[in-house]
């Protein structure tokens, strides 16, 4: 009788320093797979290693024995047996439920985040390529990817940006559509602006310009973002060319006033202007927002929307957990039948995907 065994550590059980030490770098994977087979008695294994968790999923005929040896194995790979104390382990149905939770983003730091689904996929693919997977892990991981997608489409758990920076990008997209033709102006060299600038850069904006009171600082920041720097007296001209302005200076009062922006709008022929004021105290006069085609959001505006999104995601958790439970039980029926040596079939939900999921089917090529 084969069992599914999970041994791991996550942000819920261990601080980041411990997780760092347990993290399995990709080159080490083949050795670890081999050790799990030889020393751990695992016939199949998948290793999920992200910055928030390190988990080993293994199929083994002897759950009790394997658990201890895998614990030791994992710790010893990192050269510190004492780490074994913060590991958790689960078996069979509980392990499956846990994997489904993880894939759905229910076990993540930010509920519903979508990166984890890709990480689960890559972990499975790496194991598949290393020929460490077998029937059980193939079926479970493909099922987990399906459940992860299903939970995100059926519930609103992944909806809405959950950071001020990604929210600013989402708002810019509401105004300009595709950001590829957008020009971003960074006003001031504050740290907050950098995070936001990063999010905009990831959308491949057309141009990024930094304006700062001291030109050297602007140039330094511009180099890091592969943008351009402009002296402060060119601010008016740069505003006329920009679409999105990220403002984060250390100035004690307004650096952009209504009259100035009104003048700029005339120069830009009323092309919409999106101003993001992430400085405290505020650097852009709030009345600017009342100008036609000008949209000003300050850090509080962004934060309250972020809070709203997080609250909404949280309120969807129960629904998502119920869906995962349903899918876990469904899976368990298959699992039981399979362990008894019977043939069983798992299906995708109606309307989600027409393809049937047969346990006898070969795993998808990664």
């Amino acid at each position, binding site marked *: 009788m084969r069992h599914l065994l999970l041994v791991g550590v996550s942000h819920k059980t261990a601080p980041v320093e411990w997780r760092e030490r347990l993290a399995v770098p990709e080159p080490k994977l083949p050795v670890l797979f081999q050790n799990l087979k030889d020393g751990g008695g695992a016939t199949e294994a998948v290793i999920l290693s992200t910055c928030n968790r390190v988990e080993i999923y293994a199929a083994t005929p002897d759950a009790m024995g394997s658990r201890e040896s895998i614990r030791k194995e994992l710790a010893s790979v990192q050269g510190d047996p004492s780490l074994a104390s913060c590991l958790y382990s689960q078996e069979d149905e509980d392990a499956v439920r846990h994997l489904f939770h993880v894939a759905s983003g229910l076990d993540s730091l930010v509920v519903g985040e979508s990166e984890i689904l890709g990480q689960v996929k890559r972990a499975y693919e790496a194991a598949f390529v290393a020929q460490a997977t077998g029937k059980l892990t193939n079926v479970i991981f493909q099922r987990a990817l399906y459940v992860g997608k299903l939970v995100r489409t059926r519930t609103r758990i992944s909806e809405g940006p959950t950071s001020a920076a990604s929210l600013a990008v989402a708002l810019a997209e*509401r105004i300009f*559509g595709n950001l590829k033709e957008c020009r971003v102006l960074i006003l001031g060299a504050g740290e907050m602006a950098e995070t936001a600038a990063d999010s905009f850069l990831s959308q491949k904006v057309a141009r990024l310009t930094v304006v700062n009171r001291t030109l050297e600082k602007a140039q330094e920041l511009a180099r890091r973002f592969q943008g351009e720097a402009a002296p402060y007296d060119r601010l008016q001209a740069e505003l006329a060319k920009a679409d999105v302005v990220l403002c984060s200076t250390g100035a004690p009062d307004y650096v952009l006033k209504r009259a100035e922006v009104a003048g700029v709008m005339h120069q830009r*022929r*009323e092309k919409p202007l999106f101003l993001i004021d992430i400085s405290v105290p505020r650097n852009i006069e709030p009345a600017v*927002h009342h100008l036609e*085609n000008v*949209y000003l959001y300050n850090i509080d505006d962004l934060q309250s929307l972020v809070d709203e999104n997080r609250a909404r995601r949280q309120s969807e958790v129960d629904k998502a957990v119920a869906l995962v439970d349903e899918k876990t039980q469904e899976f368990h029926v298959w699992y039981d039948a399979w362990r008894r040596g019977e043939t069983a079939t798992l299906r995708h939900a109606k309307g989600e995907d027409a393809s049937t999921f047969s346990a006898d089917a070969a795993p998808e090529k990664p």
Partner: protein
Amino acid sequence: MGMTEMVLFNLAFAGYTLVLALYFAYAFTRRESFSRSAYRLLTGTVALHVLSLGARVLAARVIPEHTWYVPWSNWFESFSLFALLIALVFLIVQARTRLPILGVFVMPWSWLAIVMALSYPFFSTPNASIASFGGFWAFINSAREIPKLAPALQSYWMAIHVPVMFFSYSAFANAFGIGIAYLIQERQIKSKKPTELSYRLPSLEELDRLIYRIIVIAFPVLTLGIMLGARWAYDAWGRYWGWDAKETWALITWFIYLIYLHMRLVMGWRGRRTAYLSLAGFAVVIFTYVGVNYLSELHGFLSGTGR
């Protein structure tokens, strides 16, 4: 009214209704299967509608005076054409932009035009008493009889002037619907509390540019339509322009869209103010189209007072 035409038109009506329902279903569920079916069904519906117009021409040609009969000579027919062209322009907009959410903002006008076409008897005989459903159906269908053409309408200009005008009107109807979408999106973002709705609508810039593109194409068409009308007026009444109510209001419509283009291109207006101008333009279009029939002695073809 021939049987074939009757069936084709009824099917088209059912089609428009279902298309509208599908677009709303898409807006609420975001399922692409709905928007895809809506697009396909709309294509089919437009084809059926065109066929029904063809069938109507064939049926009308039986009357010997109807050499120049075209299926847009009275209230029912012109609203039917309006619905068809709004849908057709929207199909083009869809093919170019792939923004199915706009169906929610444009297709109601097409559907409403069809309903207006069928509701003529309520306007012509408001005091009619209807006893049964059969009576109701017969009452409605009385609008669909093939009309006897007024002498002024028995001209080949009928086949040229009217469709050109209606094409521009239909494009303006599309711009009107999209303008409403723009204003909703603008309000969402200005409010600093954008909801789910904001994420389902296209971006401000997309909407703004789309409205402009439609008007910039429709405006020359309107200009051409008015010029063709003047030419026809010369044939029919012996003068190009006579400040008949319809002529005057068509000119007002033309001026409003001219102002839109002027403000946008010369004065650099964008966004909300131009969106309001396009809304006002369409309101005048509707008045020129329907309201004026009750003012104009010459153009009262819809209300049966035209000469």
